[in-house]
C-alpha cells in the first residue's frame, strides 16, 4: 500500500470524525445501555433457567454420550460428517487439526491476505460470500448436532446422508466455485450487483444448505425424544433418591433400617454374620470416602458383592453418593435430617390412586429389590406398569381388577397363598417387613378400581364426596 492511499484513508477518516460524535458521552451511552441489557438478560437466565444439574463425573461409565459445549457443536458435527467421507476419513488429523488450523490461520492473517484498500460491501463480494458461507455452515452444523438421534439404522443412514450433503458437500462445492471464479474470472466480482454471478451462486447454495437442514430437522421432529434423566439437585431429593436406591440394592441383606446382623432368606448368604450398618461403630468410624469404596468394590471375602459400575455393579458414582447421604441423614445422629416428603401424596376419602403417582414409588421402595430380572421371584417383575400386570407364574390370579382375592392383595396383608396340596406357593410379602396400613390401602384401592395408570384415569374413577359448603 503506497503512501498516497494511506494519506487518502487518513483524510477520509478525518472527514468522518468531523461529522461524528464524542466518545464521552455519545458512544459510552450506547455501550452502557447494551452492557446493562446483557446484565439483565444474564440475571434473568440465571434466575429462571438456571444451570442444569448433571450427575458427578464417572470415569467407569463409558456408555455416556459425550457432548461438548454448544459453541463447539459445529466442530463436533463436522468431525462426525467427515467420518462419512470414504478413503480420507482414515486420515483423522486432516479434519481434527488441518482444517481448524487452516481456518484460524486464514482468519488471523486476513489483513495480510486482503490488501485492497476498498471497504464497502459492493467491492468485497468475494470475502463476504466466502465468510457468509462458512458462518452459515457453522450455524447449520450446530442445529444438526443438537437434533435427537435417529431411532434405527435405516433412518440414521438417511439422516446422515442428508446432513453430509447439506453440511459438507454443498458448502464445500460452493466455496470451491467461489474460489475458482476468483482465481480465473475475478472481474465477475467487480461488475455491478445486478449481474453478480457469485452473489446468486451463494444465495442458491445457501438456500440448498438451509433446505437440507430443514429436511433433517423435520425428520428429526418425528423421532422419539430422548428421556431426560432427572438429576436430584436438592439435599432432600438426593436423600430420597438414595433411599430408593437403598431399597432396591441394599435392603435384601441389610434390611430397611440397616440393622440386620445375621442375613436371612438370601440365597448363598444365609446365616452370614454382618455388622449392622446403622450402628455408630460403622457410621462414626467410616468416612464417606471409605464407605464409597465399600459400596463400589464390595467386601468379597465377607460375601458383599460390588455395586459400583467400575467393578461390575449397577450404581454410578452419584448414585452411591446418594445412598451414603441417605444413610447419614437417616441413621447418623450427628446429621440433622431435613423434612422428607411422603412417599406418595395421602389419599382422600373416595380417591383412587394411580400407578404413576402412587403405586410406582411404593413398588420402587418395597418390591423392586427382588422383583426385577436376575432375582428369585417366580418370574414376577415389577419395574414397569406393564410388567406388574403381565408377568409372573401366577399372572392370571395375581392381580384381578375388583377382586380382593388377588394374590398380590392377599400376600401384602399377611396371608400366604397355598395350593391344593397344602404347599405354600407365595409367602407373605414383603418377606421381612410389614407394609404400613396406608400403603396396603393404596394397593387395595388401586386394584379394586381397575389399576388406572395415569393420574387422569384415576381421577375419572374417583368418587370424591361433594364439598359441602360450611354452614
Amino acid at each position, binding site marked *: 500500500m503506497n503512501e498516497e492511499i*494511506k494519506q487518502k*484513508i487518513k483524510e477520509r*477518516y478525518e472527514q*468522518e*470524525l468531523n*461529522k*461524528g*460524535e*464524542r*466518545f*464521552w458521552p455519545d*458512544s*459510552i451511552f*450506547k*455501550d452502557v445501555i*447494551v*452492557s446493562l441489557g*446483557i*446484565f439483565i438478560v*444474564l*440475571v434473568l*437466565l*440465571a*434466575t429462571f433457567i*438456571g*444451570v442444569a*444439574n*448433571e*450427575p*458427578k*463425573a*464417572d*470415569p467407569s461409565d463409558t456408555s455416556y454420550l*459425550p*457432548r*461438548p*459445549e454448544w*459453541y*463447539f457443536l459445529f466442530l463436533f458435527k463436522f468431525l462426525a460428517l467427515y467420518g462419512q467421507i470414504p478413503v480420507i476419513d482414515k486420515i*483423522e*488429523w486432516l479434519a*481434527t*487439526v488441518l482444517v481448524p488450523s487452516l481456518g484460524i490461520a486464514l*482468519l488471523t492473517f486476513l*489483513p*495480510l491476505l*486482503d490488501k485492497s*484498500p*476498498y*471497504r*464497502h*460491501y*459492493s467491492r*468485497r463480494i468475494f*470475502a*463476504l460470500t466466502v*465468510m457468509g458461507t462458512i458462518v452459515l455452515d457453522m450455524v447449520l452444523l450446530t442445529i444438526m448436532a443438537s437434533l435427537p438421534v435417529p431411532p434405527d439404522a435405516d433412518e440414521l443412514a438417511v439422516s446422515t446422508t442428508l446432513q453430509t450433503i447439506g453440511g459438507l458437500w454443498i458448502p464445500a462445492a460452493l466455496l470451491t466455485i467461489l474460489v475458482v471464479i476468483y482465481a480465473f474470472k475475478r472481474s465477475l466480482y467487480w461488475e455491478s450487483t445486478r449481474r453478480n454471478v457469485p452473489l446468486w451462486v451463494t444465495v442458491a447454495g445457501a438456500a440448498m444448505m438451509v433446505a437440507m437442514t430443514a429436511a433433517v430437522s423435520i425428520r428429526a421432529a418425528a423421532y422419539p425424544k430422548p428421556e431426560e434423566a432427572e438429576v436430584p*439437585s436438592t*439435599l432432600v431429593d438426593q436423600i430420597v433418591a438414595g433411599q430408593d436406591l437403598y431399597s432396591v440394592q441394599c435392603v435384601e441383606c441389610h434390611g430397611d433400617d440397616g440393622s440386620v446382623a445375621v442375613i436371612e432368606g438370601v440365597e448363598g448368604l444365609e446365616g452370614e454374620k454382618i455388622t449392622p450398618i446403622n450402628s455408630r461403630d460403622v457410621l462414626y468410624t467410616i468416612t464417606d*470416602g471409605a464407605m464409597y469404596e465399600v459400596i463400589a468394590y464390595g467386601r468379597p471375602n465377607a460375601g458383599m458383592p460390588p455395586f459400583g459400575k467400575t467393578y461390575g455393579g449397577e450404581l454410578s458414582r452419584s448414585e452411591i453418593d446418594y445412598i451414603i447421604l441417605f444413610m447419614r441423614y437417616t441413621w447418623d445422629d450427628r446429621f440433622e435430617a431435613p423434612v422428607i416428603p411422603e412417599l406418595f401424596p395421602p389419599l382422600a376419602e373416595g380417591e383412587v390412586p394411580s400407578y404413576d403417582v402412587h403405586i410406582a414409588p411404593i413398588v420402587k421402595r418395597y418390591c423392586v429389590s427382588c422383583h426385577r430380572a436376575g432375582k428369585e421371584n417366580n418370574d414376577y417383575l415389577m419395574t414397569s406398569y406393564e410388567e406388574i400386570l403381565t408377568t409372573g407364574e401366577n399372572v392370571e390370579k395375581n392381580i384381578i381388577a375388583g377382586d380382593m382375592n388377588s394374590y398380590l392383595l392377599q400376600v401384602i396383608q399377611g396371608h400366604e397363598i397355598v395350593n391344593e396340596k397344602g404347599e405354600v406357593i407365595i409367602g407373605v410379602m414383603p418377606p421381612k417387613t410389614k407394609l404400613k396400613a396406608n400403603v396396603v390401602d393404596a394397593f387395595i384401592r388401586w386394584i379394586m378400581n381397575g389399576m388406572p395408570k395415569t393420574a387422569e384415569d384415576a381421577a375419572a374413577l374417583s368418587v370424591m364426596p361433594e364439598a359441602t359448603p360450611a354452614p
Partner: protein
Amino acid sequence: MWKKIFDWLDERLGLNDLYNTLLDRPEPRGNWWNTLGSASLFLFVLQGLTGIFLTIYYTPSPDHAYDSIQYIMEGVAFGWLIRGIHHWGASLMVLVVFIHMLRVFVTASYKYPRELTWFIGIGLLLATIGMGFTGYLLPWNQRSYWATTVGTQIAGTAPLIGEFILKALRGGPDLSALTLQRFFSAHIWIIPAILMALIGIHLYLIIKHGESHFPKKDE
C-alpha cells in the same frame, strides 16, 4: 473545596489530560453494532468478578469439585445467582466476541491502519474459546468429564506432536486430578492474564487509531 481536591489530584495524576485523551475523543457517527466490543469487555469483567466469587468455595479436586459446586448452588446465599451468571455469561461472551469479529469483518475495519488490532482480536477470540474449554471441565460432572475426554483426544490426533499435546493437556495419559488442576490454573490464571494483556493492547490501539467508521459506497 471539591475544586481544591480536584486540582490537587489533577496536578499529580493528570486527570484533565486523561479526560481529554481517553474520554473527550471525537468519533465517527456511532452505530449499535459498535457496542459489541465494549460489551465483550463488560462480560470479561463480569466473568472475572463472578469467577473470583466462585473460587471462594470451589475446590479443584476430583473428590470435592462436584460437591463444592452443589454447595455453591444450594448452600451459599445467592450462590446460584453468581454461578448462573458465570455459566450463562460464558456462553454469551463467546457469542458476543464472535459477532464482534464478524462485524469487524463485514465493515472491513481490519484494514489499514488497524491490522494489528485485528491480530490481537483473533488472539482474544481464541483465548475466550480457551476459557470456555477449560471452564467446562471444572464442574467435574459427567458432561464435562466426557466432553473434555473427547476434546483432548481430538487435540491428540495431531501428527507427530499429538501424543505430547494430549499428555500436556491431561497431565498424563488419562483425565485425572492433574488435568483438573491444570485446567483450573489455566482458567483462573494463565488465560485471564493473557486476556488482560491482549485487552490492554487492543484498547490502546483503538484509542490510538480511533474507532473505524462504517464504509460508504465510494470507499
